[in-house]
């Protein structure tokens, strides 16, 4: 908080704090859970929430933020659609003395003072964690021989897709250069239908795949159906690691069809409200507040399942 601008509070007093929150969209269950979490946390904290949905478009998000500036909200928070291109509007916010909190992912800026903090996870790290947990999965399954991986990517060009692939590859290249190989990789657009269809094609062209890494649970679940239709056993013939940790993913895992899930927690509403309050009150906050997340293996699935809210 080297710039100390959060002190520029306007009223304070009895008036409820107004938070402008610009969400990416509602492209997945994960995202919806994220929005819900923010909304309910804001309600609980007694803040006035201005919520807007950008329908996956950066320009919408920018104009939403502009509008928040015009409306003179106390704090602006948003989950950036993309990581780049925020300088101009963030400078306007800064000029209007409105502190900005990022959620979910960071942005690239030239000037670090443009936002106060980031509440969220790190997609690249999720990729790394996926690779790490795959090691455990392979070990548990007593797998021998080459590891032939099929990768189901998210929407081409989307940050989670790129970074989850990057993180995974990083570990793979570092530790498993010889024995692991990504034999096929295609986008399943983060959807079940996509995952199913792509996996069906993979199984035709590369019947010897023995590991699947899916960038989210939904594609993994779709792929499971394709694997079953091909007469193979998901979780046994083909080991599956996915990211996200939605409820359906855990159900599949408890049925033994997914071997491990790397959690990416959408429920960061309460954390966000905390941070907003601190920022508003001029307290010092950390530059990056990581969400609490963990990785799950099959044996933890049963226990974790009831805790899944979305």
């Amino acid at each position, binding site marked *: 908080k080297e710039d100390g601008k959060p002190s520029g509070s306007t009223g304070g007093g009895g008036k409820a704090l107004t938070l402008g929150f610009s969400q990416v969209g509602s492209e997945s269950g994960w995202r919806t859970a994220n929005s819900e979490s923010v909304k309910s946390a804001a309600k609980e904290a007694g803040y006035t929430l201005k919520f807007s949905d950008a329908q996956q478009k950066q320009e919408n998000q920018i104009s939403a933020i502009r509008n928040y500036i015009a409306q003179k909200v106390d704090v602006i928070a948003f989950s950036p659609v993309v990581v780049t291109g925020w300088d101009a509007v963030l400078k306007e916010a800064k000029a209007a003395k409105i502190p900005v909190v990022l959620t979910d992912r960071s942005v690239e800026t030239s000037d670090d003072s443009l936002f106060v903090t980031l509440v969220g996870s790190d997609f690249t790290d999720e990729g790394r964690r996926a690779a790490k947990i795959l090691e455990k999965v392979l070990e548990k399954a007593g797998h021998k021989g080459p590891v032939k991986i099929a990768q189901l990517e998210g929407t081409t060009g989307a940050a989670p897709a790129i970074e989850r692939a990057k993180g995974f590859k990083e570990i793979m290249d570092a530790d498993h250069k010889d024995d692991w190989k990504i034999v096929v990789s295609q*986008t399943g657009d983060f959807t079940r*239908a996509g995952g199913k269809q792509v996996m069906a094609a993979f199984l035709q062209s590369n019947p010897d795949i023995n590991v699947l890494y899916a960038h989210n649970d939904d594609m993994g679940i779709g792929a499971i159906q394709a694997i079953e239709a091909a007469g193979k056993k998901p979780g046994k013939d083909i080991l599956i690691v996915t990211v996200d940790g939605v409820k359906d993913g855990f159900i599949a895992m408890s049925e033994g069809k997914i071997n491990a899930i790397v959690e990416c927690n959408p429920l960061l509403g309460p954390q966000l409200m905390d941070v907003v309050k601190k920022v508003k009150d001029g307290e010092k906050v950390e530059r990056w507040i990581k969400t609490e997340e963990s990785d799950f293996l099959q044996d933890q699935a049963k226990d974790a399942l009831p805790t899944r809210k979305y």
Partner: protein
Amino acid sequence: MTTTSRLRALTRHHLFWPVAVLIGLLLVNVPFTPDFFSVKMTDGHLYGSLVSIVLFGSPLILVAVGMTLVIATGGIDLSVGAVVAITGALTCSYISDQADQSALSAVFLAMGIGLVAAVVCGLWNGFLVARMGIQPIIATLIIMVAGRGVAQLITDGQIITINSEPYKLIGGGYWLTLPFSIFVVAVVVAATMLLTRRTALGLLVESVGGNAEASRLVGIRSARIKIMVYVFCALCAGIAGLMISSNTSAADGNNAGLWIELDAILAVVIGGTALTGGRFSIGGTVLGALVIQTLTTTIYTIGVPTQTNLVFKAAVVIAVCLLQSPKFREKVFGRKTRRKVTVPAQPVAPVEPAPKTEVSR
């Protein structure tokens, strides 16, 4: 001579090029997946690339068939993707509320509800286009935008997962060793063909699309026909919506049928129906949809890197269109056998001898 002329006649057939492209695309896969054409028995049903092309292509075929009629009337329906989402969402949310998700009656009721919603969307589109006279692209844009919102409203923005064996059959199950969806598609396509060619509907649709004013003046109730085709199109999209949600046993308000309208329109055009309306070909549309689905599968199987998927798709689409364009074939392959001057053998008529100057000056 006869063989070449027969070949000519064959290449002139309006379905020749779609078929040729389809076969070509299928063959492209062989070097990458040598057993591409093999079909084997797995778990009591047939399994293989060809089977999955039909299975995954079924929703697209359905939507495209409905779209064909709309396009034939000179319209266009952008809302099909949203209708797919709404139908799936309604049906799945109803089923998921059921205590016994596999109860047949509940499943049928749920599908009924979903399809009624689709029909309502179709009626609305038809009303805007035919009664209010709003341009189709903008009239259907309304549901395209709002419909997905409605679908998400129904699913609460979540993916609704259901566990219903009978429902699973429509889009993901097998019957007589074949994907059940093949039968659904076959029934819908056959019904459409019967409906359009055995009754006068096809003729009237083509007439409305070919010349709207003339059709009005011969007393065709074009408003009614337009409403009918929009409803039919929405119904097809609804069935496709059932299939898509059944295939994964889940309703995804945001992603189900996303951009399917573009693929459907593409399929219609590859099938030889002009976007300006008029003549249409259901068979061509089915082929067009198969071409697109094969293209998608090909992209997955031959290992195109994700970032070049779209470039590849663009290249194929352009190639298909160029091949289908007579002008292009003429310019590139044809050398057009011009100047085969066939001087008249007839006795040349009595031409007045002298060019008398008739200038009245």
